[in-house]
Each structure stands twice: as C-alpha cells, then as structure tokens.
C-alpha cells in the first residue's frame, strides 16, 4: 500500500510539474467559512408599562448542525396587558455577532414577519412597522394578551413573500428564513 501511494504521488508530481506549471498554489492554508446568511438567534423583547418585561429567545449556535435550537421564554404574559415588542435576529457564528435585523429592515420589501397563536391562546399581534409601500414588516409589533390561556406562538420570517398578502403564511408564499415556536402562557 505504501509503495502504491508513493508511486501515485510520484506519478502525480510528474503530471503536475512536467506537463503543467499552473498549480503552484498548493499550500495547505484553507480558511474556514462562517456561514454569512445563517440566522442563529431570534430575540423578541416585550415591554408593557407596569408589567415585567418578557424576552422570548431561540438560539441555535450550530445553525443547520445537529443541535436543536434552545428556546426560552422568560415569563408569562399578563392577562389584559398590551405589549410593545421588537424582534431582533442575529448571526452568532460571526464574532462579533452580526445584527441581521438591519439587513431585513433594509430589504423591507422582500421580508415579512408573521405571528401565529394556536387556537386556545388569547394573544393577538399587530404590526408596528411597515415597508416603503405601506405593507407590514413586523420587526416592531404590538401584542395584546387576552384572558388566561396557554398554547404556542409561532414567529416566522419569510423572504420574498407576496406583498401585499392576506396576512396568512399560505397566501404570502416565499421562503422561510426563520420559524420558531414558543410555548406561551397568559396569567
């Protein structure tokens, strides 16, 4: 086996050196690629005067790797309260972390966030900001908590959706950039 390997290497050297002289960049320095477009982290911060702030976070440091995202919700919503929310997305594979929200806001006509609560959950979300054409964007939101209930609240970011759309994911189309399902309770 060793002889064959040597033979192959000698043979290849003859080929490369003898017949061409173009492959001289054969140094062993390869750079790692940090995924530029990946979104690892989604943070929704909810504030409501007189009530404790709520932070909903999904963090997936290995991106498309095998580890699932870690989803945390800092506390329950207060029944009857209205929250001002802001949505932030980051790429933490880069150092320092890249704020992807800026990119989304720059390309506001190509993006839209969607917020869906499951049937039992009394949580209604309305858009707080819009793109240049007056269609919803959703990095700023207003969320009203109704009566005490529990369920899941899904945040979806769609790239190149149909705009305007009827507010449903099905009608909007496009490609899913993020989708996080938060377990939420209203007390």
């Amino acid at each position, binding site marked *: 086996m060793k002889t064959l390997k040597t033979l192959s290497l000698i043979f290849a050297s003859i080929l490369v050196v003898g017949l061409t002289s173009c492959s001289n960049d054969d140094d062993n320095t390869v750079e790692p690629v940090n995924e530029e477009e990946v979104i690892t982290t989604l943070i929704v911060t909810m504030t409501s005067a007189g009530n404790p702030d709520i932070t909903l976070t999904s963090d997936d440091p290995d991106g498309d*790797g*095998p580890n699932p995202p870690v989803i945390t919700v800092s506390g329950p919503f207060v029944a009857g309260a209205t929250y001002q929310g802001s949505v932030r997305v980051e790429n933490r594979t880069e150092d320092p972390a890249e704020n992807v929200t800026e990119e989304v806001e720059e390309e506001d006509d190509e993006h839209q966030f969607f917020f869906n609560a499951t049937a039992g959950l009394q949580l209604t979300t309305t858009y707080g900001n819009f793109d240049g054409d007056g269609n919803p964007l959703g990095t700023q939101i207003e969320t009203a908590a109704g009566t005490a209930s529990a369920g899941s609240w899904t945040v979806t970011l769609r790239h190149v959706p149909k705009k305007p759309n009827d507010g449903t994911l099905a009608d909007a189309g496009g490609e899913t950039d993020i989708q996080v399902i938060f377990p939420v309770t209203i007390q």
Partner: protein
Amino acid sequence: MKPLIIGMLCLYTTAGLSQNCKFTLTGSVVDSHDGDPLEGAVITGFSEGQVFYTDLDGRFSIPNLCEGTLGLQIAHPECKTQVFTLEITGDRSRTFRLEHHLESLNEVIITGKSYQTQSESILNNEIQRDQIERYTSGSLGDVLKTVSGVSSLNTGNTIVKPVINGLHSSRITIVNNGVVMQDQEWGAEHAPSIDVNTAGNITVLKGASALQYTGSAIGGVVVAQPQRVVLKDSIYGQTLLSGATNGRGGSISSSLVLGTEKGWFAEIQGTLKRFGDFEAPDYVLSNTGVYERDIMVRGGINKLHYGVEASYSYFRTEIGILRASHLGGAADQVRAIESDRPLIIEPFTYEIDVPRQDVTHHTGRISYFQRLKDIGKLTVQYDLQINERFEFDVRRGGRSDRPAVDLLLTTHHLHAGLETRLDDLTSLNVGLEGRYQTNEADPSTGVRRLIPDYDQYDFALFAIADRRLSDQWVVEAGIRYDYRYMDVLKFYRKSFWEQRGYDEEFPELVIEDFGNQVLTNPQPEFSNFSATAGANYSFGDSYVLFANYSLAMRAPNASELYSEGLHHSASRIELGDLRFDSEIANRINITLQKQSGRFRFSVNPFLNLIDDYILIEPTEVQQTIRGNFQVWEYRQTNAFLVGFDLDAQFDISEAFAYSGQFSFIKGYDRTLDLPLINMPPVNTLNELIWTHPQFHDLRISLQSQYVFEQNEFPDNNFDVFIPETGENVEVDVSTPPPAYHLMHLSGDATFRLNDQSNLNVGLTINNLFDTSYRDYLNRLRYYADDLGRNIILNLKLNY
C-alpha cells in the same frame, strides 16, 4: 457517414428471379488489424457474374441470393484477396475481415479490437449519428433515453442525468472522445458536460465490462466517439439548425472537417443553444431557460503505423432552475406539494435568474499511437479537464449575485495501453493509467463548503483478452486494479463531529480547532479489484447470445464521504459518512439478439447484486431556527437489482415498420427488505414508422410512450407542524405520480441541393396532445408538471 455518398457508391444489381432466391446477405468488410471499414472492396463469385462493392462504411448488401452454399471472393487494393464460403438459409449478416498485404514490412500481424466494439461479451447499444442529430438541441441524457433500459434523473427538463438499469451518477462512466469525464458527476442535479453534437456515435454498455476505461462503472459505460474523418483530400461540413416552440428557442451547430490523403485531418465544431422559460400545458415553468455555448477543435495525422491527435473542447452552460422549487424548509414543502400549480408563475422570459447553475468544462487531450513490429499497437494519452461549477441561489442582502457553490475541479490523466495479438485468434489489451485530481472550493461564497478541498491520486492497471474459439464463439476476460488515495481538508461543525462520535473515533484527524468548527485532514485509501468474463455465441441465421459476468468496485465519492449541511437546492440537510468503504457489485447480464431479417429483437435480462451500496434517504426531521428540514443521510446497505430490457423491430411491409421497447426493473434493499428509492418505473415505447424513399427519403413516425406508475417505493413521509392550524401535517414525498401516456409525431425528408450538398428537413411534435404529467424521476415533480406540447423544426445541411 454521409448518406449521399453511400447512395452513390452502393451498386445494386437486380438478379433474375428464380425460386427460393429471395435472401439478402448484408454486412461489412473491415481491416482485420484495426477493424476500420474497407471502402471499395470488390465482392465477386456469383453465377451471373455480378460484382458488388462496399460503401464508405465498408458495408454491402447482396439481394436475391438463393438457398445453398455461397462462395465469395473479396478483393481490396490494399489487402490480400480472400475466399469465403457460407451457407445461405435465410437473410444473413456477416463481417468479413481482410488482411493487409504489407508491402514495406514483412508480415507483421498487428490486430486490435474493432474501433467500435467496447466489449465482446455485452451488447454494444449503439446510437448512430442520424439519431443523435434529432436531439441536436437536447442533452446527452435525452439522446441516451432512446436506448431501452436507460432512463433519466431530471431536475426540470434541462438537467438530465442518464440512469442505466436503475443506477446513475458516479456509477456511470462517461467517456467522451477517449476522455473519462470528470465533471462533478456526484450530484443528482449535475448533468454531464457534453455537447451531443460532437458525437458521431454513442455506445451504451449496460454493465462494467469496459475495463479499459474504468473499474467502477457499476451502472454502465457510455462511450461517445467523434465522427470519423475520411482520409481523402476532402473538405466537408454540416450545419444543424433547430427551433422549438416550447422554450421559444433553438440551437445552431456547425462543423467543418478537413481530411487529406496523406492522413492529416482537422475538425472544428461549435454549438450555440438558447431557450427561455419552458412551458407545461397549463403554465409557464418560470426560470427554466438554458444558454449553452460549446466549441471543439481537433486535428492530427493518422497513418497506418502511427498517429497523433490533439483536441480541445469548451463547454459552457447556464441553466435556470424552476423558481418555485426553491424552498426554505419542510413547512414550505407542505405548501408546495399541496398546491397543484407551482407557487411562483411569472410571464415568459429569456432571462435566467436565481436559482441557476453556470458550468464550464474544458477538455484538452493529446494522444499518440504507434504500431510496433511484433509487439502491437501502443497508445499513449494525456488529458486535462477543468470543470468549474457555480450555483447561484436566492440569497439575502444582495448576495444573489455571489455564487453559493463555487467549485473548481482539475483533473490530469495519463494513460498508456498496448493492444496486441497473441496468436491469430487471441488479442490482448493491457494498460496502466494515473490520474491526479484536485478540488478547490472557494471560501468567498459565504456558504460552508458542500464538497471539501481535496487532492486525489488514482493509479490503475488492466488487462483484457478476447479469443475467437470458432466462427461462433468469442470469449473475453478482463481484470483491473484501481488504487486511490485522497488527501482531504474538511471543516466539520464541532456539534456534528461530536454527535457522530468522530471525536472519539478519529481524534487524530483534527489538525486545527476554530471554536465552532474543526479542520480535519482525512486521508483515505481504496484498493479495488474489478473483473469481467463472458462470451458471445453466434448461431442460426442471425442470432447472437451474449453472456457476461462482471465484478465492479467503486470507491465512495467526495459527496458521499464528506457532505455535511444544508443543500439549498434540495432544501434538505445532507450528511455523508467518512467511514464508508467501496461498493462491490456482482452483475450478470445476458442478451439474446437477432440482428437481421424482417423481425429483429434483443432481450436483455440482468441481475445486479451490490454490497455496501451507498444510498441517500431521509432519516429524520431536524429542527433548526430556520424551521424543520428533512435530514437525508447516506448509508451503506446491500442492494439487489433485477430486470430486463426488450427491443423489437418488425418490417410490416416495405413501407411500414414497427419498433418497440419495454424496460422492467425492480430494486430492493436486502438489509431492510424494502424497495429502493428512485427506481425507474416500468415503461414501454412503441413506434410505427412509414418510409417512402422515392420521395426525398421521407420518413414519418408515430410514437407512443407509456410510463407505468411506480408501485414499489419506500415510505419516507414525515410530519411537520403548521403554526396557523397548530396541527401536524404529513408531508407526502414518497408517493410516485400516476402513470402517463404521451404521443409523439415526427417526419423528415432530404432534399438534394447540388452534387455535394443536401438539406434534411425534420419536424417533430413531442407530447402531441399536450398532456399534463409528472415523472417519478424528476426531482421537481412535487412542484410543477412536466413539459407540454413542443413543436421542433430541424434543418440539417450537409455540404
């Protein structure tokens, strides 16, 4: 090659009719040394004193022969005159080999295999030039599908990968003008980088018996050979023009060939092809255009004792991929599959937007042969291939202009072979070859490398012998050894490296730690043996039986070993395994062929037992912040493929002929006792051809193509959560589409312009009834229907 000249050279003589004198002897006269056809050989020995001559291709046809023993004398200016006797009991076909009487040298017996024959013990399915010309604006995969048992794995209608008896990608070796293609064939959406217009003849071998090229062709070998140059002082050319309604585009392909009596020759050939969005019966398939530019030049000298040829070819294609097929995860897939129309339909355009591929392939080749006294024909070849692949994706932040995949694959290859004759009946072909390949993945894409950087070294030795035991029996045996060493630089995500247990099994491979990624340096080695043995037996009027056994081993490719991450164009996570070993295939192939007569057929049953077969299949659904993705993992299992291909032709009357094909294949996973994924469904092709030679060689054909529903498939369906309803929905990615039936109509006629030129006009209507259908082996079948009606006008000018 040129029907016009053939027609002029063929001398047909009418004989007086007598009882039982209705048989025809057809065949060819070839040089016994290299199998080259002998033009102008004189065939005599008939009672009426008739004389027949062979045409440019060495072929002849002698009609109206009587039953009984026939004595023939064949003479050729450069050869010894020889006498042959044969029994006439029906229509016969035979090849006569003449021995050169060498004036300058003493009796040197140098014989090689026929130029055309790639294997003696397996049926050589040949696609002739006129058939290739009908697909001038198509792709190699489209042409190969005309052979029974060959189907295609499509991504839309422009990325067409050949599938031979259920196997594709790295399991099929494609040889173009003597060069084994190295064009990143590992991917399901990577089509061969070949312009079909450069081929004069294509041979398909369903099995791994062409050991002079490869030992790893578990699926089969495709050999495309350029048109033969006539070594006479001549200059001739051809232009093919094609226009199609579907895609609203066409192609132009032109070639010019120069040949001289002294053996010098040169050829230049170019093709330009452009299509806009193709259309299904009910909608535009947005972003499916294609733009291809190819050029090929070659030249050299071809003498009896030596020859040199140099060639260069450039192939560049830009292919749009159906916009509606680009998805962001499993939830998007649910929507796409549930909708019976593609989710994105735009007006027709010639523009090719993202997602798209841009592939460039350069091939350079120099080959030299020398006939050595008492030794044989020595051939040395060097070839260089550079394949550059860009894949552009729908990206955020203005990155769509930056490729998401940027791979540069460079291959150097050196081959030395000796064809020799051990005695009058036995020939031997031995050789050795070496290959150096390097892959560079450009990190500036901003996307983790799908295929890592690597250097690959191959070294191989082979020997193939065939022996003619009698007029009826030819036996063949071959053996080949392949050694491969790879030097890979691969970045792994640390989480994956640990989850797989690689950190404990292969800690020594890690050469640098980058925090969330590790750089590793695997250096696998593979030692593979392949062998083939078989025979052909000619009997009766025109029957030949081929029987072949082959053992083939294939080393896993870079994709199977090192894939790790999201494959955007497939919207799935693909995982390889660096522990893979070589696949080992044992294949038995039997073909019974009847070559001539009114009724001709071939039936080809086969059995392919593959150990450590590498397949990719869905294993789970992985949750990422982008939503759920299906995880497709490569795994090794034991597979079993069985089936048969049937071809038949029947001359109903002088004007009408029938031609039919039927292909049946089943593939199973022996370990799990389940059907294999993506096995071609049973299909049949039936054609009625009407010819009317009196009127410009008019030929009209009506073709019916019926593809059955694939009823055996593994269940890979999975559940996905839909936030709007709060429910889990099953995603059906497994169920094959229903059976479909298409009709095609085509006609062509040849018009003589002057002594040297003729014009062939062909009109084809594919999918005559504009039927909506989807094909199981089209990867975009979830998202859109296949092509609707297409009217194609082909003009062929020979000059």
